[in-house]
C-alpha cells in the first residue's frame, strides 16, 4: 500500500489501525478468560460446597447413623425418623402429583384449546410457579391444618408439597405432549379413534419419558424443601416413625435445619452427615431421570 503524496499519513493510520486491532484482539482474549472464569467460579462454588460437606461429615455417615433416632447426644443421634418421614411424604406427594399434574396438562394440551378457562388456568400455573415455597407452607397451615383439620400429618405435608411442585409437573408434561409429532395423532384419528383413545394409546406412551423426568425433577425439589414443612409442623422432636398418612412426621431438611441451629460443634458434623444422605438421595433420583431421558431419546421416528 504505497500512496504517492500523503505517504506519511497513510503509514500513520495503518500503524494506528494495527494498534487498534492489537487492542481489540487483546480485549477479545481478556474477556474470553473473564467469561470462562465465571463458569469456573460457578463450578468451583459447587466443588467447594460438596467438599465442605464431605469433610465435615467424614466418619459420621454410617449404618448406625442411618438406623438411629434423633438424640440430644450427637454421637448417638441418627436420621431414621426423618428418612422414613421423607419417604412417606414423597410417596404421598408422588401419588397425588402424578394424576393431578398429568391430568391438567392433558386437559390443557388436548381438550381445552384456547378457551378462556384454559387461558386462565395457564396463566394461573405460570404465576403459581413463582410463589415462594414458604407461602405454600402458609397455605398448608391455613387450609390443611386449621380449616380442614388434618393435623400436622404426613397427609398435610404431602398435600402441601403436591401443590408446590404441581406447576413443574404440568409444564414438563405439556412440553413433552407438544413434542409428540402431529403425524402420529393424525394417523390414529384417521383410523377413527376418539380423542381420548389417541391420548391413551399414542400421545401418553410417547410422552412418558418427558413426563417421568419432569416428575422426578419435581419430587427432588419436594425432597429438599424445608420451609413449607417447617410452617406446617414447626421444629419437632420426633422419636417414632409414621405408620399411616395421619401420623406426625419430620423430614430430612427439617432435621438438618434443627441440627445446624444447635450450638455444639458435633451437631454441625451430624448436620453435614444428614446433608450428605440427602444429597445422595437427590443425586440418585437425578441419575434415574437422566437415564430415562437418554434411554428413550432418539427412538422416535418422524
Amino acid at each position, binding site marked *: 500500500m504505497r500512496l504517492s503524496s500523503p505517504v506519511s499519513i497513510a503509514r500513520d493510520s495503518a500503524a494506528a489501525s494495527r494498534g487498534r486491532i492489537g487492542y*481489540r484482539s487483546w*480485549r*477479545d482474549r481478556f*474477556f*474470553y478468560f473473564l*467469561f470462562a472464569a*465465571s*463458569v469456573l*467460579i*460457578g*463450578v468451583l*462454588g*459447587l466443588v467447594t*460446597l460438596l467438599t*465442605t460437606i464431605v469433610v465435615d461429615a467424614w466418619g459420621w455417615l454410617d449404618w448406625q447413623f442411618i438406623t438411629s433416632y434423633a438424640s440430644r447426644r450427637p454421637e448417638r443421634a441418627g436420621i431414621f425418623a426423618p428418612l422414613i418421614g421423607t419417604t412417606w411424604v414423597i410417596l404421598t406427594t408422588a401419588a397425588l402429583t402424578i*394424576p*393431578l399434574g398429568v*391430568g391438567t396438562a392433558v*386437559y390443557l394440551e388436548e*381438550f381445552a*384449546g384456547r*378457551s378462556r378457562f*384454559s387461558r*386462565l388456568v395457564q396463566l*394461573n400455573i405460570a*404465576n*403459581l410457579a*413463582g*410463589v*415462594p415455597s*414458604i*407461602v405454600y407452607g*402458609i*397455605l398448608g397451615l*391455613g*387450609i390443611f391444618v386449621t380449616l380442614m383439620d388434618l393435623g400436622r400429618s404426613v397427609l398435610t405435608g404431602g398435600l402441601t408439597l403436591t*401443590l408446590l411442585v*404441581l*406447576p413443574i409437573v*404440568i409444564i414438563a408434561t405439556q412440553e413433552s405432549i407438544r413434542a409428540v409429532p402431529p403425524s402420529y395423532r393424525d394417523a390414529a*384419528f*384417521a383410523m*377413527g*379413534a*376418539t*380423542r381420548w383413545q389417541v391420548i391413551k394409546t399414542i400421545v401418553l406412551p410417547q410422552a412418558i419419558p418427558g413426563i417421568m423426568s419432569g416428575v422426578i425433577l419435581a419430587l427432588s425439589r419436594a425432597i*429438599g424443601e424445608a*420451609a413449607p414443612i417447617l*410452617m406446617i409442623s*414447626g421444629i419437632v422432636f420426633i422419636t417414632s416413625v409414621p405408620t399411616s398418612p395421619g401420623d406426625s412426621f419430620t423430614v430430612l*431438611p427439617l432435621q438438618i*435445619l434443627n441440627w*445446624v*441451629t444447635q450450638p455444639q460443634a458435633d451437631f*454441625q458434623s451430624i*448436620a453435614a452427615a444428614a*446433608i450428605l444422605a*440427602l*444429597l445422595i438421595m*437427590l443425586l440418585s433420583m437425578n441419575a434415574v431421570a437422566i437415564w430415562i431421558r437418554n434411554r428413550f431419546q432418539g427412538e422416535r421416528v418422524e
Partner: protein
Amino acid sequence: MRPQPNSVIADNSPEIADEAVLPASEVTLRKNRARRHLEQRLVLWSLRLTAVVSILTTIGILVSLLREAVGFFIEVPIWDFLFGTEWTALFVPQKFGVLPLVVGTFMVAVIAGIIALVLGMGAAIYLSEYAPDRVRRVVKPVLEVLAGIPTVVYGFFALTFITPQLQSIFPDLIIFNALSAGIVMGLMIMPMVSTLSEDAMVSVPDSLRNAAYALGATRFEVATKIVVPAALSGIVASLILAISRAIGETMIVFLAAGSRPQLTWNPLDPIQTMTAFIAQVATGDTEQGSIVFKSIFAVGMLLFLLTLAMNVLGRWVVARYRQQYD
C-alpha cells in the same frame, strides 16, 4: 379447539336406519362407539376437575393469607405496617413497621442479583458464544446442579464456609450477616440467569453474527454488540425471575443472615428478611390467634404480592420486547 377429524363421522352421524334391520356387526360397532364416547366424556370431566385444582390453589393461598391478615390489619393500621420503620414483633413494646424486613430482603436479593448477573451473564456468553459443543454439554448440567441443591444445604454452607472466609477479610464481622447469605444465594440463582440468558442468546440467528464477523468484528464485539442486545429481553427477564426467587427464599437467610430486623443498608450487619421472620415465628411456640401469629400472614401477603408482581413483570418483558426472527 383443535379440529377433531373424527367428529363428522362420530358425533353427528345421522340415524340411518333402525337398529333392528342392521346386521349384528353394525350393532356392536355402534355400541362400541357409544361406549367410547361416554368414556371420553367422563375422562374430559375428570381432567377438567384436575385443572380446577390449580385455580383452587390460588384461591387457597389468598384465603389462608387473608383470613388472618385481615385480623392483623384491624389491630395494626395498614399505613403503620407498610411505612413503619421499626419491627419489634417479638418484644415489648410491639411495633409492626415492615420496612426493616423489606429492606433486609432487598439487600440480600440485590447482593445475590449482582453476583448472579455478573457470573450468570459471563457464563451465558461463554457457553453460547465461545464454548465448543463438547464443553457446553458437560458444563451446563454441572451448573444446573447448583439450582437443584436444597436451600437448607446452602444455609449450612454459608454458615460453615462463607462466613468464616469473610471473617478473615472483615475481622469484626458477626456470624450472622446479609453479605454471606447474599453471596451464597447469588451462587444458587446464578444457573437460573445463565440458563435462561443462554437460551435467549442461542436463539439469536447466526446470520446476525456472521454479518458482524464479515465486517471484521471480534468475538467479544459480536457477543456484546450483537448477541446481548438482541437477547436483552430474555436476559432481563431471567434476572427479574432470579431476584424474585431470591426474595422468596427462606432457609439461607434464616440460617445465615440473622434474626435482627433493623433498617440498614450495611451488608455486614445482621438483618432479618420477610421469609426469615415467618420461619422464626414458625419455629417458636407462638400462640395461634395472637397478634404475632397474625403478623406472619400480613408479611406473607406482602411477600406473595411482591413476588407475583416481579413474575408478571418478567413475563411481560419477554412478551413485550421479544425480537422475532424468521
